[in-house]
């Protein structure tokens, strides 16, 4: 196996302009992949990020934009990839949104948008990606779920439901796509250092940290390295699994 675990492969990472998605794009590119980056807005971040990785690695990365709450925008990601590369080896369904809301105070609009971005978009993207991957009888689809999708959390019923649904998608797609050589797995990050977590009140932060057996917050790189494992041939016999990247929160 090449020291570069994704050499020659094309990987689409949704929501890859910052946080976990950007960390995944960085590690994939460092391991030889041509990364298709995705961001919500056409101008700015995603183009800059693609240019940054292109300059760093000397390979032309592709930047795509689209609001994934719109199913047409999800489907629109794939024709440009086909046109430019004629292949897709890895899909990471990472883009997600979190809108807190106690039961009784959840608006239809927030619920619909959360489910569209966090659940429907991965379903549609998996469908499109599987067709491209089937041509080579190989591929890896990685769904970024959440520990909240496994155990729930107060004030996050919609988010929990949306991320639990992603696990159901993972199991079903793994079964359906295994005969075509396509593996489907999920990552369930726990308490990961992101912009959102940094805004938590100190007491809330301390309470969350207390639940982490390893005694530290996870980093985006912790999640990205797990994605690298699942994308590469190191996990060639692994499908239909959920890997918690949570420092022992669920042990």
């Amino acid at each position, binding site marked *: 196996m090449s020291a570069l675990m994704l050499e020659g492969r094309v990987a689409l990472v949704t929501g890859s302009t910052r946080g976990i998605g950007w960390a995944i794009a960085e590690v994939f590119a460092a391991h030889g992949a041509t990364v298709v980056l995705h961001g919500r807005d056409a101008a700015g971040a995603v183009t800059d990020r693609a240019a940054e990785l292109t300059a760093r690695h000397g390979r032309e990365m592709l930047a795509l934009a689209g609001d994934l709450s719109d199913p047409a925008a999800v*489907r629109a990601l*794939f024709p440009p990839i086909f046109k430019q590369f*004629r292949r897709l080896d890895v899909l990471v369904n990472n883009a997600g949104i979190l809108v807190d809301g106690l039961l009784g105070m959840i608006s239809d609009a927030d619920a619909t948008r959360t489910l569209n971005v966090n659940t429907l978009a991965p379903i549609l993207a998996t*469908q499109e990606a599987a*067709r491209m991957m*089937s*041509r080579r009888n190989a591929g890896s689809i990685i769904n970024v779920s959440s520990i909240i999708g496994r155990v729930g959390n107060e004030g996050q019923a919609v988010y929990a439901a949306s991320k639990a649904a992603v696990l159901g998608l993972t199991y079903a797609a793994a079964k359906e796509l295994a005969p075509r050589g396509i593996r489907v797995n999920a990552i369930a990050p726990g308490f990961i250092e992101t912009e959102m977590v940094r805004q938590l009140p100190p007491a809330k932060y301390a309470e969350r940290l207390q639940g982490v057996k390893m005694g530290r917050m996870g980093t985006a790189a912790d999640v990205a390295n797990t994605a690298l494992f699942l994308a590469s041939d190191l996990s060639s016999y692994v499908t239909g699994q959920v890997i918690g990247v949570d420092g022992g929160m669920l042990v």
Partner: protein
Amino acid sequence: MTLQEKLETAFAAGLGLPDTTDFASLEYRKIPEWDSVAHMQLVMEIENTFDIMLPTEDVLGLSSFPIALDIVARHVSADA
């Protein structure tokens, strides 16, 4: 080889049909060889044969050989 002949070859490969099949009369789910599982194999054969990527609405709408011929002709001419 004409576009129709290439499509017949793709149908034969995708659905496991003999070359002597009356392709023009083929309809989705009207023969045991063309079920939902075989449909995805057929779509893959068509996409590979013509080096195109069909949008989902065409995958779902591809319900007979004549319709497939129209769909493929549209995409091949669009890419030309």
